[in-house]
Structure formats: C-alpha cells, structure tokens
C-alpha cells in the first residue's frame, strides 16, 4: 500500500499465543504488503527475532502465563528492533512498564486494524530515521531549531524558559513516541523527581499555552491517560 514497488517488503514478527489473532494479524499485515512471521510463545519469539532481522515486532502482553514484559526486556538486551505491544484497555501499569522497558508504542486490544497499521508505519519510520543530525524540526505551525535553540510559531519567535525548552527538546527528539511521566521527569528534572507529576502537568499546560494553535484543543501535545504524553507528528495527523 504505502510501500515503494522496488523495495523488499518490510517484515513483521508477531508474538501472540492466540491462533485466531495470529491468523488475523497475518491476513491484515500481508494485505498491506508486509512479510509476516509468527511465534506462539515468548521464548520462541525471542529465538525468531534472533534468527532473522525484522523491521518491527508486535508483542502481545495479555497472556496469563508468559510475561510479555520479560520477553521485551530480553529483546532489549540485544536488539533495537522496534516493538509495539498489544495491551488490554485498563492495563495502564502494563503500558507504562512496557514503555519503560523499551517498547516503542502500544495498541489497546481490541484494536482497530487501521490504527495498528498506522502505528506500525509510524514506528518503523521513526526507527529507520534513527538519530538524524537534522537540527530543524517542523510540526505544523511550529518550528524548532535544536542547533540554535530557536522556537518559532507561525514565523514568530516564541520565548521559552530553560525548563520549557529542555522539555520541548525531549519531545522533539522523540516525536511521535509516547514518553512516560517517569521518563520525562527523570530526563528534564533529574533522578529523584520521578514522583513530581505536578511539574509535568504545569509545564505541559505552559507549552500548550505557548505553542498550540488552540490551547483549549491541543493537537501537538496529546495526553495518554495514566501513561504519559506524545508529541504528535504532523504527518501522522494528516494521514
């Protein structure tokens, strides 16, 4: 669908023990031009990931016996292949734990196939983009130049405090990815401040006030309830 004709298809490894979900994901992903391999067990999944390079791993966490988080931690010891975890609706703790353990994104079950595909595309794109040295980033009206520490909105410079800028920079460097409260607090305010959610609430409100087109209807900084925040990539918004 979105794949250039002359490139080999992207490969996705699905780790899920439900045969039905395996089949459905395979059908949906193959219909969209992905090459799919399937593992029904955590260990088997790790082995499959080691055998061949994949562009993305979809890992189901909602298994009573296999601890998906352990699989994730194992993977993160030796590979940076992006991982999208499938979690249950009220599994906020699980979502946070997987993001803190190195997951790239999560999709809540029962998932919408279109949403899963969009997340998959965005995750793979982010991973392939890797660490670019491009200092200039654009998000709709917003322009952030990390080299000269300049922030512009609609061509007008925006004045940010030092902390506001550090927070914004972290979001820009991880655009499109959910950052957990803990991750942000640790990076921006330092170790030992992980519990100070109030800082985050106040500063997110300030960034929205200064940078969003309509602070009452924020589009750039989206709240992921109970988990964290995400800086929306405008390409994703347009899609």
């Amino acid at each position, binding site marked *: 669908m979105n794949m250039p004709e002359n490139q080999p298809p992207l490969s996705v490894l699905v780790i899920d023990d*439900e045969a039905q979900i395996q089949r459905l994901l395979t059908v949906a992903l193959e*219909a969209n031009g992905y090459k799919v391999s399937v593992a029904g067990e955590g260990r088997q999944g790790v082995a499959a990931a080691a055998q061949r390079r994949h562009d993305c791993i979809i890992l189901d966490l909602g298994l*009573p016996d296999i601890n998906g988080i352990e699989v994730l931690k194992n993977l993160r010891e030796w590979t940076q292949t992006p991982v999208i975890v499938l979690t249950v609706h009220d599994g906020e703790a699980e979502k946070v734990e997987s993001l803190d353990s190195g997951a790239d994104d999560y999709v809540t079950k029962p998932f*919408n196939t279109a949403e899963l595909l969009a997340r998959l595309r965005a995750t793979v794109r982010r991973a392939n983009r890797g660490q670019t040295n491009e200092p200039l980033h654009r998000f709709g009206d917003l322009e952030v130049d990390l080299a000269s520490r300049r922030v512009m909105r609609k061509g007008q410079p925006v004045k940010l405090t030092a902390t506001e800028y550090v927070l914004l920079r972290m979001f820009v460097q991880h655009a499109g990815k959910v950052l957990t409260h803990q991750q942000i607090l640790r990076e921006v*305010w330092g170790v030992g401040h992980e519990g100070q959610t109030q800082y985050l609430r106040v500063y*997110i409100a300030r960034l929205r006030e200064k940078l969003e087109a309509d602070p009452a*209807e924020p589009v750039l900084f989206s709240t992921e309830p109970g988990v964290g925040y995400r800086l929306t990539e405008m390409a994703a918004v347009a899609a």
Partner: protein
Amino acid sequence: MNSPLLHKLVRFSLPNVPMVHCSPVSRGLSMARLLREPLRSTARLFAPMSGVSASLEAPWRQYVLASLVFAATTLLSFYMQEWVGYQAIALIYLLSVVLLALFINRGATFFGTVLTAAGWNFFFAPPAFAFNISDTYDNMMLLTYFVVTLTVGQLTTRLRAHRNAEMQAKLLVESERLGRTLLNSVSHEFRTPIAAITSAANSLHSTSVLTREQQNLVQEIESASARLNRVVQSLLSAARIQSGQIRPKLDWCDIADLVRVTLRGIKDQIYSHRVRIFIPKDLPLVKADFVLTEQALANLVLNGVVHTSPGTSLEITARIENGFLALAVADDGPGLPPDQLERIFDPFQRGGTTKPGGVGLGLAIVKGFIEVQGGRVIAANRDPGAVFTIYLNATDSPHLPHENL
C-alpha cells in the same frame, strides 16, 4: 472471591472451558484448575486448626475441659502422692495447666489455674483437706505457681492470636490473588474473541471489493463488537470494584486536560449532544487517579446522553468548593425521580425512565471508581434536568517549581 458478581462471572464463563484449551500453548491456568485450587488451598491452610481446636470453639467447652483435666490430674496425683511428695504434685498440676493453655483461651486458663491451685492447697498441701497454708515455702510456691501459669496462658494466647492473624492474612492474599488471576483470565477469554471479530471486520472494511450492502453489514459487525466490548468492560470493572481489586494511583491531575481527554475518548458516542465545558483557568491541580476519574466522568456523560433527547446539551463544570473539587455533569432532561436519587448508584438500577442500552452498571462504576479514591458522587435535580457531581478532596496543594523567564 466473596463477590456475588464474580461468582456469576465464573459460572458464566464455565461453558467456555474448551476455549481455554484451544490455545496452542498450555495456559497453565484452566478454569477447572482455578476452581479446584481455592478448595485445596483453603483446606491446606485450615489443616493445623482442625481437630482439637475446632471442637473447642465454644467457651463453655473449654471450661469443661479445664475441669476434666483438673479432675484427672487430681486423681493421678492422689495415686502418685506416696512416691513423689506433695510439692512435686504442684509441678504435675503446673504441667497440666501449661498443656491446657495450648488449647484454651485466657479465661479458661485462669479458671484452670485457680482450680488447680485451690486443689493442690486443699488436697495435698499440709494440712490436707483444708484451705490454709502456714508454711512460707508453700506460700511462695503458690505465688510462683500463679505467676507461671498466668504468664504461660498469656503467651500461648498471644501466640495463637498471632498465628490466626497470619492465617487470615495469608487467606486474604491468597483469595485476592486468585480473584485477580480469575478476573484476568476471564477478561482475556472475553477480549480475545472480541479482538478477533473487530480486527476481522476492520480488515474486511478496508478492502474495496465489498458492495455497499456488504459494507453496511460489516459496519454493523463493527459497532456491535464495539458495544459488546463496552459491556464486557463494564462487567469487569464492576467485578473489580466488588472484589476490592481497584488500587487507585493518586497523582496530580490537570482537570481541564482530564475533561478534554474524556470527551475525546467517547466522541463517537456523544455526537448527538452538545457538550459545554466551564472550567476556571486558575483551577488548581487536584490529586486523583486520572484514569479512574476519566472513566467515571465518561460514564456520567454517556448516562446524560442516553437519558436526554438528541440535540440537547450537557454541561461539564469544575470548581473548588470547601476544599473539594466539584466536577459536575448537568443535563436538560427530565431529571430523576426524587426517590431514585439515593439508589441510582446501585448496580442494575436503571432510573425511572428506563431506556434501552447499557446493563445498568455505569453509575455503579462511577461510584466505585470515585469512592475508592476517597471521593463521593451525588445525584441531584435542577430545573430542568439532572446533575451528577463528583467530589474529590482538594485540600492538598502541590509543591510547584518556580522559574522566571
């Protein structure tokens, strides 16, 4: 495990046993095993308690036992007196009381102590068959006797209480763990097929080979499975509330953001109504569980949408009132019958004007999610319409960073 709803859920899910086994990997947690386990583990925990102690639960039996032991020891002592002398008899009595104390409560032990002390004094200490003791040595012995038996009685009672508390705690942990495992398992068994249906319908939807009629049918499948998912979600939430498994995570929340996120999450279900938001810009941060409060607020808004006519509006207001955050959802509908105001939050109460839709758990979940955070939710009527208000403690104020431009 003592929640009726949970029991219903378990019974409900029993026909699903084959589904547990259909997974390629052994889940290690079949329903059958889950149901066997509590019985076995409960039996295991109670094993040390059974036998003697179980038949001694009634206090009068303990006094009878103390008397019987006293009588038996006295008879034995009469027989042994010739060989061991009257002072060693005191030691035999002491032994009997110490052994008794292992099985009976403090009162009965005291009773046994008095009985044996008096018995020793009367039957054995010279002068025999009289209550007076002249010997200082015997007096000392009697005093020591009391102190030792009472101390032992105290110690064993305390030990037993400790052991009981430990066992209770163990049982509680065990049953909580079981309840959680069971709920997770039931949740997984419900959600997997729903996820399969949703995902299959989505995939069909995105292919372009379908006729218009087929597209409509696929949409029906999608909306029905979304609805089924919401019902399952409600049932599971209610079961979690009833079995006390909700652990609120209190954190500073930006209420304006919370309201926004809530409305975004249910926008497909509330488009028929206009929602107006009134939140002062200077509303302080409030310590609450973001996700639980969001779901409670969503249920209140959905409740308003279901019970009022399309095209009418709902109002969400937030303000600080006497140290509480008052987060209210008001509608222009017919309001609530006065006798329903209290009961409306009970499970399966569906208000006077029963309309189809929902299983009658929405408001019960609101109450559960708010009360577990130490808050309250109150229903009232206004003119016209109903107002549901969530109250959360807002006396704390966060320590905020100071920074100048």
